[in-house]
């Protein structure tokens, strides 16, 4: 047993072998599933993306609208109420919110299914019904974060000279806000978008556990319960890699939308 798993080799040799295998696309074999780790992970990633991408999309849309409206109506009841809600949102333990959603919509009202992801065979509607609660849960913190960052970023740009000049030219207020102010407020929003997308991957660990969604999160938690180290290593490596790649993409996009930033000149 020790020989077949290479456990009799020194630690460094084991590490070298593991890394060389990883470079060849071989993450080892999960002993609890008795399948190659990569195959398991590849099977779960689409499910996690199915939750994370719509969650981020919804969060970005709602967060931007709330943030812009709050900034434009600074000091109004709208601003006050929604910024208070945003504060509650960023402070929310999402696993608790998930449980409360299940309690309300599944246990008490019986409107939506509480666990699993349904089956595409029963129609796309079935999967969407299963997606509603976990997506909502996963999008809470990003929505609140987007709303807060958009508000402060718009406030900064709206008081700038460029926007005052546009107003002086008599351009309609709606166009000034939604086209020009929003455009110059984009860089911090893009930074946060990348961070939130990456942390959605991690946040999925809790959300997926609550809703028994068969994605990367439940895979990792299951692997930890079973002390399935090859699977834990593989899954962690993939998530960390996704984190790094997303951050890199954000850096590139950041440079494209904000010409002031340059990573070469060191400005």
């Amino acid at each position, binding site marked *: 047993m020790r020989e077949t798993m290479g456990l009799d080799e020194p630690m460094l040799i084991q590490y070298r072998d593991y890394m060389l295998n990883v470079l060849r696309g071989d993450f080892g074999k999960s002993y609890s599933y008795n399948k190659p780790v990569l195959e398991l992970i590849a099977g779960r990633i689409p499910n996690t993306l199915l939750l994370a991408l719509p969650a981020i999309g919804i969060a970005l849309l709602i967060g931007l609208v709330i943030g812009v409206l709050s900034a434009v109506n600074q000091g109004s009841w709208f601003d006050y109420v929604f910024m208070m809600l945003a504060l509650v949102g960023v402070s929310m333990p999402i*696993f608790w919110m998930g449980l409360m959603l299940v309690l309300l919509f599944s246990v008490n009202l019986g409107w939506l299914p509480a666990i699993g992801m349904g089956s595409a065979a029963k129609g796309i509607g079935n999967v969407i019904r299963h997606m509603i609660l976990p997506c909502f849960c996963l999008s809470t913190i990003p929505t609140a974060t987007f709303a807060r960052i958009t508000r402060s970023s718009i406030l900064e740009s709206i008081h700038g000279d460029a926007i005052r000049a546009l107003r002086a030219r008599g351009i309609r207020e709606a166009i000034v806000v939604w086209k020009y102010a929003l455009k110059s407020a984009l860089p911090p929003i893009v930074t946060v978008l990348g961070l939130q997308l990456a942390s959605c991957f991690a*946040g999925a660990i809790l959300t997926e556990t609550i809703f028994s969604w068969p994605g990367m999160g439940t895979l990792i938690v299951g692997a930890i319960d079973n002390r399935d180290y090859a699977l834990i290593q593989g899954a962690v490596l993939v998530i960390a890699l996704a984190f790094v790649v997303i951050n890199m993409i954000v850096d590139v996009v950041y440079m494209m939308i904000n010409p002031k930033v340059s990573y070469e000149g060191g400005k």
Partner: protein
Amino acid sequence: MEKKLGLDQQSQEEIVKRERKANSAWNKLKRNKTAMMGLVVICIMVLGALLAPVITGGKPNEIHPVDAYLKFFEKGHIFGTDEFGRDLFTRICYGARVSLLVAVGATIVGGFFGVALGLISGYAGGVIDSVIMRIMDGLLAFPFILMSIILMTVLGSGIFNVILAIGIAEIPRFARVVRGQVLIVKQEEYCNAGKVIGISHPRMVIFHILPNTVSEVIVYATLNIASAIISEASLSFLGLGIELPTASWGSILRSGRDCLNTAPHIAAISGLFILLTVIGFNLLGDGIRDVLDPKMKK
């Protein structure tokens, strides 16, 4: 004439003193209503935790199977009881001890090592800076919760290990914040002056640079306690944190999850306490930031 001037000077000094007092950080913070709301919430939670043996029966793990799943205010149990008939109010108060201890402990661990590394990295620069920051960047590649989960898997459960796991995961974040600040501070005139009169490096770092990074660290630490509370609850919720039967808000929530149908109040009340405390720390953190760094105020 001289006498008049003396009086003027005295009254001027008084005015300056009064203004200084009014502009002191604490007085500014006192005027910030939301920050004060946060502080009140935190004080209530801390008092509840400290006075737990006085305001409750003092037996958070005492089992009364007959009284299981009592609702609010039934048989003198303010928050009802859990699946073993343990008084939920008592467990919430004792849970506050563990949750707050872990959050503050983890922030101290993360803060201590993070600040130290950030100071060294920012002050030394060059190769040392590169090496430390690349390691920190590597650690940052793991999302926070994932990092603590990995560490908990390695360390095993228990209060001390939870503090360590969350604390270690926080080190790179503190290091980054402090390093950024050190890079600004060390260019200041007084640091150059210090160099000219030949004060030693440790003296420069500890007495001249560190005090000027403190405000950033305080703001970050306050906000960080909020996220540490959530991290502890997440870990305990996943069964990796505090071992049962020790009460922590996360472990109460976990047991509440298993009986969501029969006794939803267990999960509801424990989560509500987590939410309120986190909001409290976030409000206070935002308030302190507004006071210490007016440029950030939006």
